[in-house]
């Protein structure tokens, strides 16, 4: 069961988890990303490419589901303005065993960083700045393509 949502509303972690748990999995791994509260950002704005973003997230969830035989995968991403401490993204992977759930979860968030069209803008003290892409993100996403990667 794949669930993808790109939404302006806050992410309801309990409701999202209840969905993946309903798959009857032995293990569920999740990753949640938050607006950092420690670097002076007052507002973070998320822009996306409507339609294409949802398709990219769905393709990512399908890739993870196939590769790790997941029972459920969810990718939920917020867009629009949000405040420090708020949840930006949630990925969840449910599988029969823990290694599959943990690896699929890491894969989903690493690849989401480079494969889905979202752009972040930080507002600090009235000044807005687009966040630059991090080279580490590209490397983390590409690591999943190497056949020899340690699991």
């Amino acid at each position, binding site marked *: 069961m794949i669930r993808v949502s790109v939404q302006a509303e806050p992410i309801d972690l309990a409701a999202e988890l209840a969905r993946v748990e309903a798959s009857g999995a032995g293990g569920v791994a999740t990753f949640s990303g938050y607006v950092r509260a420690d670097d002076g950002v007052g507002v973070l704005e*998320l*822009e996306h490419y409507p339609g294409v973003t949802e398709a990219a997230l769905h393709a990512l969830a399908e890739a993870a589901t196939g590769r790790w035989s997941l029972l459920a995968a969810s990718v939920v991403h917020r867009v629009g303005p949000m405040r420090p401490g708020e949840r930006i*993204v949630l990925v969840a992977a449910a599988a029969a065993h823990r290694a599959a759930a943990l690896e699929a979860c890491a894969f989903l968030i690493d690849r989401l960083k480079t494969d889905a*069209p979202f*752009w972040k803008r930080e507002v600090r003290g009235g000044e807005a700045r687009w*966040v630059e*892409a991090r080279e580490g993100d590209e490397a983390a996403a590409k690591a999943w393509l190497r056949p020899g990667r340690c699991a």
Partner: protein
Amino acid sequence: MVRLLYFAWVREAVGTGEELLDIPPDCATVESLIDWLATTSEGHRAAFADRARLRAAVDGAFVPLDAPIEGAREIAIFPPVTGG
């Protein structure tokens, strides 16, 4: 007519998020389209000054800048993504 989409600081520099344009027939790739777009306004020129900071999608699929655009209905130009 092709629908052009711009996101993030590319959108801000161009001055709009979307435009419908007749593209010159000799624009065979995203890159040559960008060359031509850069001549259409000062905003476009500024947005497309640094090609290394640009990414593109043709009809919803991410492509390298040297990808062909023949038959495309929607072309998006934007910075490297920063989600998650």
